């Protein structure tokens, strides 16, 4: 699965994207974030407080309890600040 990171999440992790093999026990966006947080200190820092992280599956915003389903791309980022 392709994982994208933006803004402060990208900077904490030090990567804009990576390709990962997601294990079967990862069922939701929140599970994915918690599993990714084990990959490095930067990941752990980025996902330390999921209340301040937003997620998208296949370019659609989702909640942390949204099931992974058939998503091929996931993205994690802080609350958005457009306009």
């Amino acid at each position, binding site marked *: 699965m392709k994982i*994208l990171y*933006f*803004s*402060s999440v990208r900077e904490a992790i030090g990567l804009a994207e990576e390709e990962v093999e997601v294990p079967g026990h990862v069922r939701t966006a929140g599970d994915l974030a918690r599993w990714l947080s084990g990959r490095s200190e930067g990941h752990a820092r980025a996902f330390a407080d999921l209340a301040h992280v937003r997620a*998208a599956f296949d*370019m*659609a*915003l989702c909640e942390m309890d949204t099931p992974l389903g058939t998503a091929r791309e996931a*993205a994690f*980022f*802080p*609350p*958005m*600040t*457009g*306009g």
Partner: protein
Amino acid sequence: MIRVGPEDFDPGRELAALEADGGEAGALVSFLGTVRVRSEGAPILSLTIEHYPGMTERALAAMEREATRRFGLTGSLILHRVGRLKPGARIVLVGVRAPHRAAAFEACAFLTDFLKSRAPFWKKEETPGGARWVGAKASDEAALARWERGA
């Protein structure tokens, strides 16, 4: 019409085109957002806007469709710049055409409220003290609640 990219735009020309293309509308309302000169007292040296290519365009198109449906728009445009911008630079232009002014004002407010916190853009301000990501404000979410109640 949606356009996202680093290029500057000419609001006069863009709004004239929207005006000409507005069908039988009797109103045009627009919002132009620019880079502020100061942030919490400190001068802003630059504002860098990051986005999620692909998702940004999708999110903006969905907002535009929803505004068109809700407010009966006869035309609209959302232009948003990305990359490193100087103080005073144009960031965003929203323009809407509607039969009457009330719907046009409402639609413009609806789009700018959703742009603020539901389109994947992130702003980083550079001041003499360093660079920092601009945080989302509770008031941004409160602004959205108004539209969700009215859905």
